[in-house]
């Protein structure tokens, strides 16, 4: 099982780096959907293992909730928000893409040096998986500050949430069910509120470029 989880943790990290290298909002949403599917697969493998070993269904239920929520519902909401704002071809990021990717790589190296010193984590597989999933959090944060459009920042927030979830899964092999449900409800509320806010920003300022929020209106 460990080798499959290693591969999945690498692929999740890879999907977040590919997300940073994309230019268009539609491809952000598509990559986010793929990343969520990979996370659902990870949860599925862990859930199946815990069902066989301990007979508990918790993680499998979490897996199904992830598929419903992050693979189907949230990308659909994002598409809806994206469809309702008027599309303008505009450069969405502050730095050029090769530089963004290399900074992401620096983040992974930074995480490796900081996480490998934590005592208690030093088992081979757990160390690898935690390094990879912890970097997803930082890359999500970096994605959030490197994009100008509010929708890109929403996706950055979702990637941070994915990273936190995966880190918890890999380091503990299953958090209590009630905690997961709480996080999911928080997230869906945040996405709904952010969607409404993006539409409001678009209506007031005629663009969702956050640089233009300083423009005077009246």
């Amino acid at each position, binding site marked *: 099982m460990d080798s499959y989880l*290693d591969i999945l943790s690498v692929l999740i990290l*890879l999907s977040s780096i590919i997300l940073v290298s994309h230019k268009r909002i539609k491809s952000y949403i598509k990559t986010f959907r793929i990343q969520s599917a990979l996370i659902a697969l990870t949860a599925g493998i862990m859930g199946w293992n815990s069902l066989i070993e301990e007979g508990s269904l918790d993680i499998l239920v979490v897996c199904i909730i992830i598929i419903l929520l992050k693979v189907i519902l949230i990308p659909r909401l994002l598409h809806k928000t994206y469809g309702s704002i008027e599309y303008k071809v505009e450069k969405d990021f502050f730095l050029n893409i090769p530089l963004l990717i*290399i900074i992401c790589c620096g983040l992974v190296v930074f995480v490796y040096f900081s996480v490998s010193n934590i005592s208690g984590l030093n088992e081979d597989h757990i*160390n690898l998986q935690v390094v990879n999933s912890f970097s997803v959090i930082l890359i999500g944060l970096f994605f959030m500050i490197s994009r100008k459009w509010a929708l890109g920042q929403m996706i950055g927030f979702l990637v941070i949430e994915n990273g936190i979830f995966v880190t918890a899964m890999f380091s503990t092999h299953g958090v209590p069910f009630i905690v997961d449900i709480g996080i999911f409800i928080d997230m869906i509320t945040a996405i709904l509120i952010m969607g409404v806010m993006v539409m409001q920003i678009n209506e007031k300022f005629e663009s969702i470029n956050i640089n233009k929020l300083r423009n005077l209106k009246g």
Partner: protein
Amino acid sequence: MIALVNNFIQLLIILLLAPMVGGLIKKIKALTQKRQGAPVLQMYYDLYKLIQKESVVSETSSWIFKATPYIVFATAVVGALLVPITTLVPSARFTGDIILLFYLLALGRFFMCLSALDTGSTFGGMGSSREAMISSLIEPSILVSVFTIGLIAGSTSIYEMMGAMSSLGNPLFHPVFILTFLAMMIIILAETSRIPFDDPATHLELTMVHEAMLLEYSGRHLALMEYGAAVKQLILITLVVNLFLPMDQFIALTGAGGFILSVALYFVRVVFIAVLIAVAEVSTVKFRFFSIPNLAALSFILSFLGFLQYFVLGR
């Protein structure tokens, strides 16, 4: 002595198979577009025809223009000699290794750029400047991925690297090698001038890279240049196939029977990689020239992350 004969047979297999791989990729592309396409063996006919024709050389060009086709072809053949097809039969020990292989190919490419500048045509200069940019962008990623495999195998000799990879069982289920494999696929596309980097089927002035450098060549020289490019493509495919999809560990036979079975499996894997390349070509478009650094950076980061995973895993 036996080892030398083995090497020679493997070299012959690569030389004979090389033009077919390009034809296979073209055929798959044609089938996805509902065309019939040229026959798979078309490139053999082309080479046969070109070798019989005389080659025209511009009066203003220097010796570099005439020497380049031979240098390109010779570097490709020596490169093919360094890449064994199977680990079942012993190969002769060369002092050369995988680093020599990549710089031999780079030597051929360097002379190709020079000869394109030599005749003074505008397209040649444009093509060679673009080729130089692409190859310098993709070189860090080649070296990092090669060194990662070398670190794990404990050697940079291709024969020993192949042995180490086949003792791993299935390398693609290893977090280090899945990243290195993806980086190598991008490297193949860049080195053989395939679609996201360069369109091999076009002769449109504004977009061509590799073709622009061959424009001045004709006859025998053109045949050598194209054959050299085909051999180079098959060398890179052979390297990927033997390092990342090894099958020698499944073969129980030894001697001639094992060798034939191993070569048959090698054909199957080459066809598989050719299908992957054709799918990549069909499903993407040629990138804008200034978007190529993005893809090169992605390839570099894939190989670098693979390198990093090796240290995180500590094995």
